[in-house]
C-alpha cells in the first residue's frame, strides 16, 4: 500500500477517535468544563496530564536536541521531569485543597487583591499564547510532511481539529481525549525505538539498550558512538563540553517553569481528593518517564544510524554517494529541513565537523561538511525510515506526533479560556454572569485564541524554540514564586506578591528581549546573543531561575515594609495546609 494512504488511515482514525470522545464527554456545566466535574480517576488524570504536558517539543524535538549535543542536553530530561517533584510536593495538593478552578483564582484570593489576579491573568495569557503558537507550528510541520500538503493547509487542518474537541468538550472532553492521545503517542514513540534497539544491541528495551553492547562492534554502544564522532572531528557524546553553571541554571529554570505552567497545574484540580492530587502527580511522572527514558536512547541510536548511513563502510571508508541516498533523505529534502551540497564535486557525501576538521579531512583536502543542513526536529519523525522500518510504523509516528502537539494545544487553550471567562469576566468585570453565559464566554475566548494562534503561526515572527523558552521563563519567574509563597508563607502580603510577580516577569522579559530582540523581531536586540555579552555568563534560556530568585527577594523586602496580612487570610492559608474538608470547596 502507498505510504500516503497508510498515513491517512492512521492519522484519520486517531482523529475520528478523539472527536468521538469529545462528543461523548460533552461538558454540561462550568464544573464539567473547567474541572471535568472533579470526578477524574487519579491514574487516568496522570495519563491525561502526561499527554497535556508532552508537547511537540517533547515528542518531536527533544530526542533530536539530545542527539545533537549528547550529555549537555540531559538538561531537558532532568528539567522537564524534575518539575513534577516540585508540583507534587509543593503545589498540587494545596491548590486542590483550595478548591477553585484556575491559577489566577488562587493568586487573587490568597493575596486578597484584584491587581494580583490581573497580573496573574496577564502572565498566564502571555505564556500560554506563546506556547500554543509553537504547538500549532509543530502540528503544521507534521501534517505537511505526512499528508503531503503545504504547511498552510496543515495549519488550518490542525486549527479545525483542535477547535472541534476543545470547544465542544471542555476539560471533561479534553481529559478523555488526552488519555487516548497518550496511548497513541507512547505506542508511536516506543515501537520504533524497540525495533532500533533490537537492531543495534539485541536488547528490546531501549532504556537498557543505550548502555548495552553494540552488536556490530562488540563494545558498548556509547563507546562506539564516542569513537566515531571523535574520528569525524565532533565532541564525544558523553562528555561535558559546556558551562556547568549554565547547565545547572537551565535545568532549574525548566524545573520551576514546569511547576509554574498553568495548563499543567489546572489538571490537578480535576481529581476528587487532595490525596488523589499527590497520587496523580506520581502517575503523571511515571507516564512521562516512559517516554523520557526512551528519548535518550532514540537520540544516541539515531545519531549512530545516521553516521552509519553516511559512512556505510565505516568512518575510515568511502562515504555515501549522492546517487545512493536513501528515500528518507530525498523525502526530507523536499520539506527543506535537510540539505546536502557536493562542495568538492566528487559525488560523495563527506560529513564531518568542519570547525574542527579531523586529520583525514586535512589529508584528503575536503572542502567542507556536505550535509549542510540537518534540522533536529526531523530526527524522531524520520527515525523509522532511517532504520528501514515498515510503512505502518511511519504512519503510527505521524499520528503520535500530531497527538502530542494537539493535546498540548487543547490544554493550553483551556487554560486561556478559563483565565478570560472565569478570572477576567466573572471575577472582575461581570460577577453576575450566569453559568450559561460564562460557558459561552469561555468557548468564544477559546475560538478567539485559536484564531489568534493560527494567525501568529501563519506569520511566525521568526521564532520557535525561543517562544517555548520564554513561556518557561515567564512561568518560572512570575506564577511559581507567587503560588509557593502563598502556601508556605503565612505572612506574605498582597503588595509583596504583586511586586515580586512584576519584578520576576519584567526582569525575565527584559533579559530575553535584550539578547533575542524586542518581541523576537530580528535586528532589534540590544546586545549580540553570545556568552561574552551575557550577564555573569547566564544564557537568556536559563534566566527564568534568576527571575524567580529576584521575585522571591523583591517580595520579601516589600513585605517587610508594608501592611501585614489580614487575619482571615492567615486562616485561609492554614486551611489549605490540611487535606480535610476539600470536598466542601465551592465553585463560587
Amino acid at each position, binding site marked *: 500500500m502507498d505510504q500516503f494512504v497508510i498515513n491517512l488511515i492512521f492519522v484519520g482514525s486517531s482523529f475520528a477517535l478523539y472527536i468521538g470522545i469529545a462528543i461523548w464527554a460533552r461538558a454540561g456545566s462550568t464544573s464539567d468544563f473547567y474541572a471535568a466535574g472533579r470526578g477524574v480517576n487519579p491514574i487516568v488524570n496522570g495519563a491525561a496530564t502526561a499527554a497535556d504536558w508532552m508537547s511537540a517539543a517533547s515528542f518531536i524535538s527533544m530526542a533530536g536536541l*539530545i542527539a545533537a549535543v549528547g550529555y549537555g542536553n540531559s538538561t531537558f530530561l532532568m528539567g522537564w521531569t*524534575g518539575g513534577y517533584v516540585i508540583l507534587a*510536593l509543593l503545589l498540587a495538593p494545596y491548590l486542590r485543597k483550595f478548591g477553585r478552578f484556575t491559577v489566577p483564582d488562587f493568586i487573587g484570593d490568597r493575596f486578597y487583591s484584584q491587581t494580583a489576579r490581573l497580573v496573574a491573568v496577564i502572565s498566564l495569557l502571555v505564556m500560554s499564547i506563546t506556547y500554543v503558537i509553537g504547538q500549532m507550528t509543530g502540528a503544521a510541520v507534521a501534517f505537511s510532511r505526512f499528508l503531503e500538503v503545504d504547511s498552510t493547509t496543515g495549519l488550518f487542518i490542525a486549527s479545525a481539529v483542535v477547535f472541534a474537541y476543545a470547544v465542544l468538550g471542555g476539560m471533561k472532553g479534553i481529559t478523555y481525549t488526552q488519555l487516548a492521545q497518550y496511548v497513541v503517542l507512547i505506542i508511536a514513540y516506543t515501537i520504533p525505538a524497540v525495533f532500533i534497539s533490537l537492531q543495534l544491541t539485541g536488547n528490546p528495551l531501549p532504556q537498557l539498550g*543505550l548502555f548495552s553492547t553494540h552488536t556490530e562492534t562488540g563494545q558498548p554502544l556509547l563507546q562506539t558512538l564516542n569513537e566515531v564522532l571523535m574520528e569525524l572531528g565532533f565532541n564525544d557524546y558523553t562528555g561535558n563540553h559546556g558551562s556547568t553553571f549554565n547547565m545547572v541554571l537551565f535545568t532549574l529554570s525548566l524545573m520551576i517553569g514546569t511547576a509554574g505552567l498553568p495548563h499543567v497545574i489546572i489538571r490537578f484540580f480535576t481529581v476528587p481528593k487532595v490525596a488523589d492530587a499527590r497520587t496523580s502527580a506520581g502517575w503523571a511522572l511515571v507516564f512521562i518517564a516512559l517516554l523520557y527514558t526512551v528519548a535518550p536512547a532514540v537520540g544516541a541510536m539515531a545519531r549512530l544510524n545516521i553516521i552509519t548511513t553516511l559512512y556505510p563502510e565505516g568512518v575510515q571508508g568511502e562515504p555515501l554517494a549522492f546517487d545512493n541516498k536513501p528515500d528518507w533523505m530525498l523525502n526530507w529534502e523536499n520539506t527543506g529541513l535537510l540539505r546536502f551540497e557536493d562542495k568538492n564535486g566528487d559525488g560523495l557525501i563527506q560529513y564531518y565537523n568542519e570547525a574542527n576538521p579531523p586529520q583525514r579531512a586535512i589529508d584528503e583536502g575536503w572542502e567542507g561538511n556536505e550535509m549542510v543542513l540537518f534540522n533536529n526536529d526531523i530526527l524522531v519523525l524520520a527515525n523509522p525510515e532511517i532504520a528501514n522500518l515498515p510503512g505502518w510504523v511511519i504512519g503510527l509516528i505521524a499520528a503520535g506526533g500530531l497527538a502530542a502537539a494537539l493535546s498540548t494545544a487543547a490544554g493550553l487553550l483551556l487554560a486561556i479560556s478559563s483565565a478570560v471567562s472565569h478570572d477576567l469576566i466573572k471575577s472582575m468585570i461581570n460577577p453576575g454572569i450566569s453559568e450559561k453565559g460564562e460557558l459561552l464566554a469561555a468557548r468564544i475566548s477559546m475560538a478567539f485564541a485559536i484564531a489568534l494562534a493560527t494567525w501568529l503561526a501563519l506569520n511566525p515572527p521568526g521564532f520557535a524554540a525561543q517562544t517555548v523558552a520564554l513561556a518557561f521563563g515567564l512561568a518560572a519567574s512570575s506564577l511559581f514564586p507567587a503560588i509557593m509563597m502563598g502556601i508556605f508563607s503565612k505572612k506574605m502580603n498582597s503588595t509583596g506578591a504583586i511586586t515580586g510577580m512584576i519584578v520576576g516577569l519584567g526582569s525575565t522579559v527584559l533579559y530575553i528581549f535584550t539578547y533575542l530582540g524586542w518581541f523576537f523581531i530580528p535586528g532589534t536586540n540590544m546586545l549580540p546573543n553570545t556568552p561574552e555579552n551575557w550577564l555573569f555568563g547566564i544564557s537568556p534560556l536559563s534566566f527564568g531561575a534568576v527571575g524567580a530568585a529576584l521575585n522571591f527577594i523583591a517580595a520579601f523586602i516589600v513585605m517587610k515594609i508594608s501592611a501585614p496580612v489580614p487575619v482571615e487570610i492567615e486562616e485561609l492559608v492554614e486551611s489549605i495546609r490540611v487535606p480535610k474538608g476539600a470536598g466542601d470547596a465551592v465553585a463560587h
Partner: protein
Amino acid sequence: MSDKSTDAYWKANVRIITICMVIWALVSFGFGIVLRPLLAGIPIGGTDLGFWFAQQGSMLTFIALVFYYRWYMNKLDLEFGVEE
C-alpha cells in the same frame, strides 16, 4: 483539630518535603551535573555513573520520591486525623 496539632502536622510535612527535595537536588544537580567528576570512576555501559544519572537515574529517583511522599503523607493524614 487544635492549633497545636495543626502546627505539628505542618512541621512534619515541611520536614519530609525538605528531605525529599535534598535528594531531588542531589541526584539531578549533584550526581547528574556538578558532582559528576566524582562518579567518573564508576563505569556503566561505555560511560560513567554520572551520565546515567543525568539521562535516566534522576528521573527514576524522582518517581520514587513522589510515591514515597504520597505514601508518607497518607500515613501522616491518618495519624493526625486530617484525611478526607
